[in-house]
């Protein structure tokens, strides 16, 4: 049974579920790798109840993926994805007159939503329409995207052990020494910040 054939809207949730199953079972008890073998799966069902990666959190899967000696796969992640029944699809098809370089983001979204989205004009490509749509959204709602396009200039002043960080948008923040980001601390912050 392939449930995603009948419910394409759930495809992303299946992927989330399967990636989450690769995480240590944090919601039930502390991980004990000796318990994860086939013979004891039935006895330890309570440990294996899948927990989903929360929407507001990022995560790194513990599985190690070698990339140096990688040969024969479309992507280094493919062996891992194979194990959980996921595939990585290249959506650029310039040879057949489809999306070409630069359109990858829009082509991916249009491919993912192809079952539900229909182009206004059947002759036009959905990925191009999505680009136009995104730009129109940015153009008509500039305040919502202005922050993404703002180049932040920071100036810092050191008083004793506290930095006063002033952004060009008026934002001011106090930071104890050592709390600055790694990049600023790594270089000479006085030079970077123009102080």
């Amino acid at each position: 049974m392939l449930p995603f054939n009948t419910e394409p809207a759930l495809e992303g949730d299946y992927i989330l579920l399967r990636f989450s199953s690769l995480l240590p079972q944090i919601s039930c008890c502390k991980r004990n790798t000796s318990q994860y073998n086939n013979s004891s799966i039935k006895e330890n069902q309570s440990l294996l109840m899948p927990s989903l990666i929360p929407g507001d959190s990022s995560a790194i899967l513990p599985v190690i993926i070698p990339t140096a000696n990688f040969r024969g796969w479309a992507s280094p992640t493919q062996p891992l994805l194979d194990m959980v029944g996921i595939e990585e699809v290249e959506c650029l098809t310039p040879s057949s007159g489809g999306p070409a370089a630069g359109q990858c983001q829009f082509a991916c979204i249009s491919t993912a939503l192809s079952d539900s989205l229909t182009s206004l004009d059947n002759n036009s490509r959905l990925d191009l329409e999505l680009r136009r749509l995104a730009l129109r959204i940015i153009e008509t709602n500039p305040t919502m995207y202005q922050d993404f396009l703002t180049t932040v200039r920071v100036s810092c002043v050191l008083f004793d052990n506290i930095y006063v960080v002033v952004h060009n948008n008026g934002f001011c923040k106090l930071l104890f020494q050592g709390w600055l980001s790694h990049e600023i601390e790594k270089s000479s912050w006085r030079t970077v910040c123009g102080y």
Partner: protein
Amino acid sequence: MDIKAYIAAMSNPACDGDAVTLQALCDALKITVRVTKLVEAQKYDEASQTERLLASSRSSSDFFHSIIEARDTSSLILDEDSCSFGSSDTCSSYASAMSRDSVENLEMRVSPTLSAQEKGARKRLYISHDIEPRCLGNVDSEIRRFASSSQGRLIWLSHVGDEAHYRLLRLKSAFDTMESSVFNRHEEIMASESRIQRILKLQASDQLVDLDFVEAIPMARSQTHVNIGVHRAQLGNRQCTLCLKSLFDDPVEIRGYFYFCNVQCCATWSKLRARKTPATTQQPVINLVDDTQASIKRKDEASSFQADAKPKDTSLTNDKSCTKHSPHRSEIFSRLRPRPSRPCSLTKTRHNLRKHKRLIRPVDR
């Protein structure tokens, strides 16, 4: 950076989309996107990540527990050959079916002999947080039409290499390496509930697009908040809000934009909403269930005694019976309104006004 200059540059189809366009797509289509990327293996710190995920998953696990309880109380019956939700003896979830040893030994299976240099090139898969849609101020009918078809979807992108190149992650169409039993009812339910959680989040921020606002053929409005047995022609290709099944016989409609395949789904949804809403607004949502049950009785009575009665007449009769068991409709409506709706724009305000008119009309009569 000047937005006009940015838009002019981004209009070129050869220009790669960036984080801004991705966010704009999420906002416009009301979709959620997650991005995966290979990162250095050393960045993985199990202890801190576990602590962080536990802290942020606390609320979501509460949500899932509430779902389990709600399903238990609504007596949802699953297929006999599938496991019951949460049972430990018959479930073979995907995680349990997959051998942990095989996952952890992936490195050895891919390349049995690794040099020190090759070990340095080891990576791990990073999964981003949800890139969620935001409430837009200015939207037109075309954007609403797109959003009505795509809202609530979760899309996975794979960020490839150091360039801004994306590939799409999707389920394999022919996935036969595992036993078919892994695609069991349990996984399907978990996936459905993951989607419900996301839709509830959208709903809480008042971002769901009302389909009727953009449809060319206006739907016939029901006289009550809960309407059972919606005419098939009105449904189109809608799916059940809870289980995403196609709507067949006796679908249930709530407030014109929630559709359920049966009363159980409707009751479960209402209980879930009751658990998600603040204590002060729980009662009216429970009244929805009462309304549903009252409507069932009404429908049975109408079908048995008034076989030829028109739907409008039936609903008018129902109004009287409904008022016996529940508060006045205007009172229900005042408490049933979507939670604090922030006026995003004039369009949104007009939209809300239309909804008000639709729902208030029966009371005025």
